[in-house]
């Protein structure tokens, strides 16, 4: 970072005119980036008429009634709970399964390992749409068109990328520590959870963030699998709120606060963990 500032930003510590221009441009982009979010926020406290007539004005009265209405319309707390549950279990499944297979593939340098690794990574190219109909058909026959089935699907779809990331990182982890643990009498699960997993922490952070973001916001898979369940994920609730509200002339007074309450949990998590998230996302991309 600092080395770069020397090349691009000049050598003196004082801010030069060119720096002020850069700051000014960055500020404009910041306003542009934040505008839709601020816009969303101010319109979450207005009625339909005010939203449509004066969308750019700060509400005369900060009325939380619309938020309360949205909370009950999208069944917020149960939906939040189920979204969190699905995300946490799916990501845990992905982390453990992917780390286990990557560990074994790196430690066993056999042809089977190579073939397995190539198969996993080649599957990154398969878009979800090209297998979703048969997948649903099969899972329906297995009586898995429900939340457990959804979690299994996420477990499978997250696998390619997670295995790829773990495999890349695992190669740089020496096996000597595992040898020491084995000699000390640790069993295979103790070695995995107490020795291997702590070393893989940076990759685990990346895998959790990338998969967690995707599952939390995912629309299509929950739509296909659990649309008929009484409790739905937040994104799915939002979709149905928009769909049904559209029939009566788009009551934006429901959509704005509903979107607001669904993104607040993500923004809180992001602000708490931003260091890890920004680093983890970039790290994940570099290894792809």
């Amino acid at each position: 970072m600092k080395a770069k500032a020397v090349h691009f930003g000049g050598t003196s510590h004082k801010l030069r005119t060119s720096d002020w221009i850069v700051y000014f441009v960055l500020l404009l982009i910041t306003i542009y980036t934040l505008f839709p979010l601020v816009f969303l926020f101010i319109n979450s406290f207005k009625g339909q008429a005010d939203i449509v007539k004066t969308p750019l004005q700060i509400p005369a009265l900060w009325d939380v009634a619309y938020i309360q209405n949205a909370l009950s319309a999208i069944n917020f707390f149960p939906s939040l709970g189920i979204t969190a549950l699905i995300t946490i279990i799916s990501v845990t499944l992905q982390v453990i399964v992917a780390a286990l297979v990557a560990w074994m593939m790196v430690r066993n340098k056999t042809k089977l390992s190579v073939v397995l690794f190539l198969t996993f990574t080649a599957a990154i190219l398969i878009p979800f749409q090209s297998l979703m109909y048969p997948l649903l058909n099969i899972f329906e026959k297995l009586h898995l068109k429900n939340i457990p089935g959804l979690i299994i699907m996420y477990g499978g779809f997250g696998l390619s990328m997670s295995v790829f990331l773990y495999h890349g990182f695992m190669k740089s982890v020496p096996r000597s520590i595992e040898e020491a643990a084995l000699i000390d009498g640790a069993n295979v699960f103790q070695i995995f959870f107490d020795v291997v997993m702590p070393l893989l922490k940076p990759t685990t952070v990346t895998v959790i963030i990338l998969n967690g973001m995707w599952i939390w916001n995912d629309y299509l898979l929950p739509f296909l699998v659990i649309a008929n369940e009484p409790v739905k994920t937040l994104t799915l609730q939002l979709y149905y709120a928009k769909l049904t509200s559209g029939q009566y002339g788009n009551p934006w007074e429901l959509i704005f606060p509903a979107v607001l309450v669904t993104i607040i949990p993500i923004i809180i998590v992001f602000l708490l963990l931003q260091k890890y998230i920004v680093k983890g996302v970039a790290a994940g991309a570099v290894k792809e």
Partner: protein
Amino acid sequence: MKTAGSAAIRSPQPYSHSAVCLEALMDKFYKKWFLPLAIPAIILFVGVILIPFLVGVFYSFTGWRGAYFVGGGSNPFAALVGLDNYVKAFNSEKFINALVYTVKYTLIAVVWINIVGLTLSLLVTKISKGAGIFRTIFFMPNLLGGLALGFIWAFIFEVVFSQFIFNKDGIINLPFLTNMTQDNTKALFALLILVTWQMGGYLMLIYVNGLNSIPADLYEAAKIDGANTIQTFFHITIPMLMPAFTITFFLTLANSFKLLDQNIALTDGNFGTRMLATQILRTTRDTSPPDYGMAQAQAVIFFVLIAVVTMVQVYVTKKREVEA
């Protein structure tokens, strides 16, 4: 072998011999646990991806209607129709429109979103103070769902752009930026504006990583040789960023081809704005009884298109990496 010493203490054998033994012991240990520990991943992979994918390719050659097979009841082998579904797909106006629309969007989006991401990264690496805050803010939209923010942008396009900013009595009269979600061409740019807003910060992070890994002495050498900023940018920065381009082009290509949530949120595929992913999802709703066979043929074409284009792209950019 770092732990050979500790093994030697426990075993009476000579040092080198025990290291060999330990090596063999570990190999045996890993070999013993390979299958038991790899099985969960293999089962998930086979059950969720491999079998559905292969079944999908097979069903694209049958008269699949979801619950049954035309002419075969529940037996797909009795309902083979050859290439009929593919012929039907290529004769379907909706599919061809979606294909053309997706390719058009992808061409524009890959270029534009990368220009924005790269520009953002150059800006935030130019300053020394506050860069972290700007990076965090620019990345934030990427965390939020495409559907949720798509609804908000739909309102911005339909009301704020059309009735307050770019209309006749607005701040600047730019008819192109009004009613963007009700016109096929304008909607493509509306989609571009939304996705750039969401993805620009993500690409910026990747480019920042790339920029930071360029050795400083390259720039110093260029300065000594009297290269100007533009020369330095095209002869050092761009070639040295090739590894980053491999990733960002792959991500934007795949993301543009597969775009669904934003497409549904903005226009729901109306006014001829269906992307391929939306088209495949809606085919079974357009046809009665639902023609899953034809949907599946479109899905296979979709797969081949994405696989070929992204593989060619990775091959081309990787090759440039080596040369650079």
